[in-house]
């Protein structure tokens, strides 16, 4: 085939010891055509990054390619010598990584790093190279490249760094760009910018993109063809439209079903039972069979073979044996219908009232630590949470949403404002008074790996709060309480005698929840509790949180940047920008008819799953300003597509759209409200 850019056949890569290898990539084959975007979709640990590294032959030292062929142009990459390979890397195919922060050398300027790639691949030096660097930076839409060329990586934002990485990748004029989760570490508005840029560059240069991601939304946005990877194997390959209109493999279907959406509110999310199998196991039948609802006996006995059907290929017995696949289309029976709490619109009591909350960190300089300014991480936030309800606090990274959570808990003492919790003013409590009230409000963190002391048993972790509150229970009683807690979050009682590192990410998050629940709190602050988890695990945790809310009437402050999670779980929503809340209201009101231009842009930047509806994305210019030096007037005006003169002069007051929906924007303070809202 002449139009193939890269064709991989039967590639196997092993990691770890020879005796018990981890079969990270186990005989996969695919083909990328010239100029197309091919997406490899899979959950963490399924071997997708190792696939990419195998193609570049950049495996870690314990990794080795066992068999297979990687035909790139006219060469078999796996047969090249190391020095020939260096010519391919960067020149023929090139790679950008997930973490732009660590991919650039912090002690070299941007210009030097880009021109190095030019020197290596094109042999350009001097004035010509400099001009080329400027062109490249311009091509990746870095504003003011003349100035940026002399700057160091730490002076750039995350999105900028990723663009520089793309510029370096483009320097060698590659035929294939391998992008390993290129936007996972970026905010949604920046992600939209970067994805847009990649698409445009692809059209201009005609290169192929091999996109590795776990995000169905990104895939829907970018890919021409899609391969779904599960436990080291590709289980389905299809054209985008075919895939999104009718995913074939039971695993692909489950992925879609476990996504939280507005439509699935008030019901439990579908979860894939069991866990991803260890890649050290020797598989006999289909790898997905133990978790599949449609598994037949043959699935456990023989590995499935490819079923090719027009523009799709599926690795599933259901298709090769001509089973009745229509039953796959039946809506899944839900194990646990969650009663709709949202129906009780009757106002429950106010639990938390935050008024004009401020957290300013002083910037100190010089020998005597003179305060030269403040980082206004949180700059006057008002919010209320009612008993048994969920408030979602949404914003991009660096907008201060985590600081809000921590300052409500008084983990960071606020510099101003009031936090009234259940009738008590938390900001004025002394350390010891606060210590006794701490059982009422708890926190769950984002990273399930750093949220538990690795040197303590699960039992001690969960019992810690009980002990800290001066509990004088006998050890057996306490043990029983811990076991009850564990069962409540869906873990077996014998987990208590194990260490956190023995658990997977989702299980650890359950332990975190159990630790918070053990002291019977009224409010739990969930700081991005699912953003480090895979979609199917995220569904489990969201279900658990819903269930617990129903049972105990706990209120949640849900801090997140993920709109689909918000639309599924939250009752009310507050949008935060640069330390201030710009819009708040019920989820339905805000998500259906956003008023603030920032909310509108934020919502439009979220990739949608339905590739059919091409929505209009509002592109925001530039990055979030620094909270140490916010713009005058409305903080959003430098990026706002609708900014007016008054926006530059003063911060807008709060205007009410309806009883529960408020927005801080000059557009609505003018007498005649101009609803520029995009109806969704």
């Amino acid at each position, binding site marked *: 085939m002449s139009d193939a850019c890269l064709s991989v056949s039967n590639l196997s890569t092993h990691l770890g010891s020879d005796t018990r290898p981890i079969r990270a990539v186990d005989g996969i084959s695919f083909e990328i055509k010239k100029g197309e975007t091919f997406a490899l979709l899979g959950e963490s640990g399924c071997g997708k990054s190792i696939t990419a590294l195998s193609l570049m032959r950049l495996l870690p030292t314990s990794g080795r390619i066992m068999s297979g062929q990687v035909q790139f142009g006219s060469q078999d990459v796996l047969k090249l010598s190391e020095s020939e390979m260096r010519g391919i890397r960067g020149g023929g195919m090139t790679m950008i990584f997930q973490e732009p922060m660590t991919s650039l050398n912090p002690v070299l300027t941007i210009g030097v790093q880009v021109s190095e790639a030019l020197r290596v691949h094109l042999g350009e030096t001097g004035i010509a190279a400099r001009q080329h660097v400027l062109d490249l930076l311009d091509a990746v839409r870095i504003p003011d490249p003349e100035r940026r060329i002399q700057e160091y990586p730490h002076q750039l934002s995350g999105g900028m760094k990723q663009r520089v990485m793309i510029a370096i990748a483009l320097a060698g004029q590659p035929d294939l760009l391998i992008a390993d989760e290129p936007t996972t570490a970026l905010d949604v508005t920046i992600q939209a910018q970067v994805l847009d840029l990649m698409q445009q560059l692809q059209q201009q240069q005609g290169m192929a993109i091999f996109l590795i991601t776990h995000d169905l939304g990104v895939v829907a946005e970018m890919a021409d063809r899609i391969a779904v990877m599960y436990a080291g194997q590709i289980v389905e390959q299809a054209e985008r439209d075919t895939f999104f209109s009718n995913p074939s493999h039971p695993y692909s279907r489950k992925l879609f079903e476990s996504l939280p959406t507005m439509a699935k509110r008030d019901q439990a999310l579908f979860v894939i039972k069991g866990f991803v199998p260890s890649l050290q196991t020797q598989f006999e039948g289909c790898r997905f069979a133990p978790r599949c609802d449609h598994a037949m006996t043959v699935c456990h006995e023989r590995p499935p073979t490819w079923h090719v059907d027009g523009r799709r290929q599926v690795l599933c017995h259901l298709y090769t044996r001509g089973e009745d696949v229509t039953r796959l289309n039946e809506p899944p029976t839900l194990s646990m219908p969650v009663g709709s709490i949202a129906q009780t619109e009757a106002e429950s009591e106010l639990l938390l009232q935050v008024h004009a909350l401020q957290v300013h960190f002083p910037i100190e300089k010089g020998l005597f630590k003179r305060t030269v300014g403040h980082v206004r991480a949180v700059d006057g936030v008002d919010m209320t949470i009612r008993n048994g309800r969920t408030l979602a606090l949404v914003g991009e990274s660096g907008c201060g949403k985590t600081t809000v959570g921590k300052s409500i808990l008084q983990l960071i003492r606020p510099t101003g404002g009031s936090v009234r919790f259940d009738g008590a003013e938390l900001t004025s409590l002394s350390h010891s008074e606060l210590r006794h009230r701490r059982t009422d409000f708890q926190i769950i963190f984002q990273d399930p790996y750093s949220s538990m002391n690795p040197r303590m048993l699960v039992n001690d972790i969960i019992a810690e709060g009980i002990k800290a509150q001066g509990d004088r229970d006998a050890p057996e009683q306490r043990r029983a309480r811990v076991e009850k807690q564990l069962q409540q979050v869906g873990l077996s009682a014998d987990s208590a005698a194990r260490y956190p590192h023995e658990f997977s990410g989702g299980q650890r998050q359950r332990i975190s929840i159990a*630790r918070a629940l053990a002291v019977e709190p009224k409010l739990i602050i969930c700081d991005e509790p699912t953003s480090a988890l895979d979609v199917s695990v995220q569904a489990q945790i969201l279900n658990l949180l819903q269930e617990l809310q129903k049972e105990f009437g706990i209120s949640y402050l849900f801090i997140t940047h993920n709109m689909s999670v918000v639309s599924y779980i939250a009752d009310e929503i507050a949008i935060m920008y640069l330390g201030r809340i710009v819009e708040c209201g019920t989820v339905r009101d805000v998500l259906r008819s956003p008023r603030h231009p920032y909310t509108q842009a934020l919502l439009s930047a979220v990739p949608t799953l339905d590739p059919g509806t091409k929505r209009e994305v509002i592109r925001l210019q530039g990055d979030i300003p620094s909270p140490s030096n916010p713009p005058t007037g409305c903080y959003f005006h430098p990026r706002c597509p609708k900014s007016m003169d008054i926006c530059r002069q003063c911060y807008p007051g709060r205007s009410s759209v309806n009883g529960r929906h408020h927005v801080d924007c000059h557009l609505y303070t003018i007498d005649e409200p101009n609803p520029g809202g995009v109806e969704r």
Partner: protein
Amino acid sequence: MLVLFWTDVLIFLLVGMVLIFVLYARRREHLCAPWREVARSGVAMGSLVVLGFYIVIGLLDSIHFRPAMSPNQDNGQVQYANEILSVFDRLVTPLRVRGEKTYSAPFAAFLYTKETVELPDGRQRRQFPRLKYGASHLTDPETEKTADIVMTGMFAAAKGLLVWGVLCTVLITALGKWKHQALRSVFAQMRAGQTTVRWRSMLYTLGILMVISFVAADLSMKYHILGTDKVGENVFYQALKSIRTGLVIGTLTTLIMFPFAVLLGLMAGYFRGWVDDVIQYLYTTLSSIPGVLLIAAAVLILQVYLDNHADEFSSVSERADLRLLFLCLILGVTSWTSLCRYLRGETLKLREVDYIQAATALGVRHFTILTRHILPNVMHIVLITVVLDFSALVLAEAVLSYVQIGVDPTMNSWGNMINSARLEMAREPIVWWSLFSAFIFMFSLVLAANLFSDALRDAFDPRLRQQR
């Protein structure tokens, strides 16, 4: 009658603490795992055997007593000698008591200096007199010595190998019993180096050390294998006695600095604010004072005290011991700053970690957070620093004694041996064996400690662990 020196008490306290830690760690997986990593490293286990030899000698030399003299004729009461000996002294009594007149070279049969001897016929002649003990069993040392050394050495080596073989057999049998495996398969695994603990390199090192110590023991009964010093004392005995001094300096100093560094470092990092300012001020000031100056001043003050209160001490060894302890103390005071700074930095990082925040949110007390969450997570740093510091301190003792602000001149130490060698090296013909012995003993201890600490760091440092 048992005599307890201050350093003895502290040494056995340290041994006790190590034992308690071992018992505590045995049941905790996260504490055992890095040690298992260490046990897999052949170099580390070999070094451990060498260190073990030093430690055994050091411990034997730390049990002091006054030997009983023959019962008094009058009342039958047991009288104790004024002299204080250690168990080790008792074991090597021949080395201790068989002194010559002055210098003699290793394996020599004659003194190193000429003396005027009266011949039987009444004439006087200057010649090298025969030694009282060294090679005294030979009638004609010139012809017989080499053969005798070789023969004795070979015989001793054979004995050493025999004992080593017995030890190996005992070990293999014990392992086989413990793991319920056939002896043959245990042996095969061990030879192939596939055991979880690297027995192979341990046994090889043990074999070499066994041969060396048997040969040295047998030969030193007949010769002064490392010569004698100015007052005719056996240099081999001095070098062996110096082991305890080196170990005491290397370990007790860390024991003394440990509470300072850990407590202050954790407090500075955790509480921040003025606590941090005060502690930082303290250690920056302290580390700006030249260490040698501080040590010299402290040792001089102590010396004046000792001289003025000579009657408070029952023996010379007790005075020397106090000076050793004081040296450890002052070395500890000057060396805690780097560990403290390191711990402060680590605590600053840790206090922002989610699980510490979660503990605060649960209302856990500051002290509990420090001891339960932060301390266990910085212990690897403490351990790595302590082991790395050990060899530096052993070397520091030599330097300090050389400039005469180290241990008491009456105490055996490698530093004092080197110090005395200053004059010996200027002498014609030179006396090289004091320096040589001190060098060999110190070198093998420090090398073993360094190799061991490298393996320890590889196993305990989380950053290095990730790279594997």
